[in-house]
């Protein structure tokens, strides 16, 4: 099973500029989590901090009992072997062809024979649909292929934690859907903890078990997917629906005057950029491809979420209960028609 990643009070700044502060969350072992956020909110920085490429000023990142922020270089390299990271552009080694790129971690860290290396590499290449491109150099292939090759390379060591930096950027919707399916299938097969950083709403709605959002130097919320998908938080609502009305602006800060002007435009009938329907709400989660094992993470998460369900906002509770089968509802002793009053303020908050 994948490992748990505990982040506590993490703060990162470059010089005087704070990227985000006091980020506290736990990536539950073996589950798929997605971190949303508008461009420039430090999602990639967060990801790089998790692998120790950047050193946050305050806080802790604990993996297997080791604090990544303060551990020795040697220890860091040991822990990194548990990670598989997919960088935004694949980050392939330009001087090696795809085969050597994907074989690189195996040759560096294992004593496998070249035949075994070949078997594993070809298996992973087939998994990401790159059969026949072994001898291509990274400069000769498209961005989507680079990305898939980067994923294959991240997977060869059977990582326990997989981090994906915007897996959808530069990919068409169909390839994005395939990639989402691939990640879910992977989770079913190797039960790795997965964190995906993205601003793709489709991925956020269908892929993860847990969903979080970064905005204005803070973690707006992080918790079971139903919480964010049903949230009334203005930022979340605006982001999920992709509209201009709301706290997120074109620049980092949006002032009152701009917001008022936009509201006036919208009142006068000018479209705010979103579709008419509200895409919030709990939609069915992506399932592993038929024939693959059931995702253990789903069962574990269900137990975990059901144990805290009475602390979740009302809409989230309803969404969760509605997604259960009648037997499960009976087992957990919950009913869609019997709302429990939420102790949470309606405008949501950090979970």
């Amino acid at each position: 099973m994948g490992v748990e990643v505990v982040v506590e009070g993490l703060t990162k700044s470059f010089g005087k500029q704070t990227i985000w502060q006091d980020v506290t969350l736990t990536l539950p072992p073996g589950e798929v989590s997605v971190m949303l956020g508008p461009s420039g909110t430090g999602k990639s920085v967060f990801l790089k901090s998790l692998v120790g490429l950047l050193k946050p000023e305050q806080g802790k990142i604990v993996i297997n009992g080791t604090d990544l922020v303060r551990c020795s270089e040697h220890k860091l390299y040991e822990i990194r072997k548990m990670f598989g990271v997919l960088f935004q552009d694949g980050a392939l080694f330009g001087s090696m062809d795809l085969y050597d790129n994907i074989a690189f971690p195996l040759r560096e860290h294992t004593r496998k024979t070249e035949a075994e290396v070949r078997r594993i590499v070809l298996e992973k290449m087939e998994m990401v649909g790159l059969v026949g491109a072994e001898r291509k150099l990274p400069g000769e292939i498209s961005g989507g292929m680079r990305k898939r090759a980067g994923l294959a390379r991240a997977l060869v060591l059977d990582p326990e934690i997989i981090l994906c930096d915007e897996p959808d950027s530069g990919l068409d919707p169909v390839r994005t859907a395939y990639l989402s399916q691939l990640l879910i299938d992977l989770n079913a097969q190797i039960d790795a903890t997965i964190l995906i950083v993205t601003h793709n709403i489709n991925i956020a709605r269908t892929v993860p078990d847990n969903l979080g959002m970064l905005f204005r130097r803070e973690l707006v919320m992080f918790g079971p997917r139903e919480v964010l998908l049903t949230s009334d938080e203005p930022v979340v609502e605006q982001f999920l629906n992709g509209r201009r009305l709301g706290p997120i602006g074109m620049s980092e800060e949006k002032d009152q005057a701009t917001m008022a002007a936009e509201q006036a435009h919208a009142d006068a009938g000018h479209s705010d950029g979103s579709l008419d329907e509200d895409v919030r709400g709990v939609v069915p989660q992506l399932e592993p491809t038929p024939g693959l094992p059931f995702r253990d993470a789903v069962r574990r998460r269900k137990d975990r979420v059901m144990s805290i369900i009475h602390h979740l906002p009302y809409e989230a509770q309803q969404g969760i209960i509605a997604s259960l089968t009648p037997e499960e509802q009976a087992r957990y002793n919950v009913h869609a028609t019997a709302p429990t009053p939420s102790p949470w303020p309606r405008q949501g908050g950090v979970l």
Partner: protein
Amino acid sequence: MTAQTTFPGAGALRETGKLCQLGIDVVRTSFRRPFQLREFIQQSWFIVSVTVLPTALVSIPFGAVIALQLGSLTRQIGAQSFTGAASVLAIIQQASPIVTALLIAGAGGSAICADLGSRKIREEIDAMEVLGVSPIHRLVVPRVLAAMLVSVLLNGMVSVVGVLGGYFFNVIMQDGTPGAYLASFSALAQLPDLWISEIKALIFGFIAGIVAAYRGLNPAGGPKGVGDAVNQAVVITFLLLFFVNFVLTTIYLTVVPAKGS
């Protein structure tokens, strides 16, 4: 790492500190197994291929200038018999390490810096670290060692080509006596001169490699940053090498007695 103290020159001190840290890391890591032999050979070959021709072309006129200058000087003071001796001394002790340094920094170092810099901005270095492979062990150590090896070899080549150039210009252009030129070779020069020359080249190669790697691994954001980093690497290396040359020469002249004294 809390708020960084700021006072005039703090930035420069910090950079110097980091440069030294990289130097120490490289020395420490170069003893770690497995040694990246393949990378080392490739890099050595690469550095040789970009430096050997320019070095030869620079050292011929360099030797010639020294020979011509000394030729006319010795004639003025009536010491023609020492022309060869002085020119050998000048070329081996000073000219050849300096020419080597210029070429290693200008051709080899800039290539190393540009290579590492472009890898850094393509996130290759990050990817390597995340894959649990130290870029210092894997990339920097072989490059620094290659720069050291090549500069020692280049130094030998510059000495030979420079002396030949000096001989040619002295004998052909200034009608010097070939026999006297050759016979006086060992009048002033001694074996330690050759040693210090090679030691200088070794140290120059190390410094050029470290500075190039340091600037390459820390470019200031984006492709333009890499260009700037290459530029800075060459300038910083030149400054350092001339200064180190001065220090080493001073030490050598103090420690090793001149021949015949």
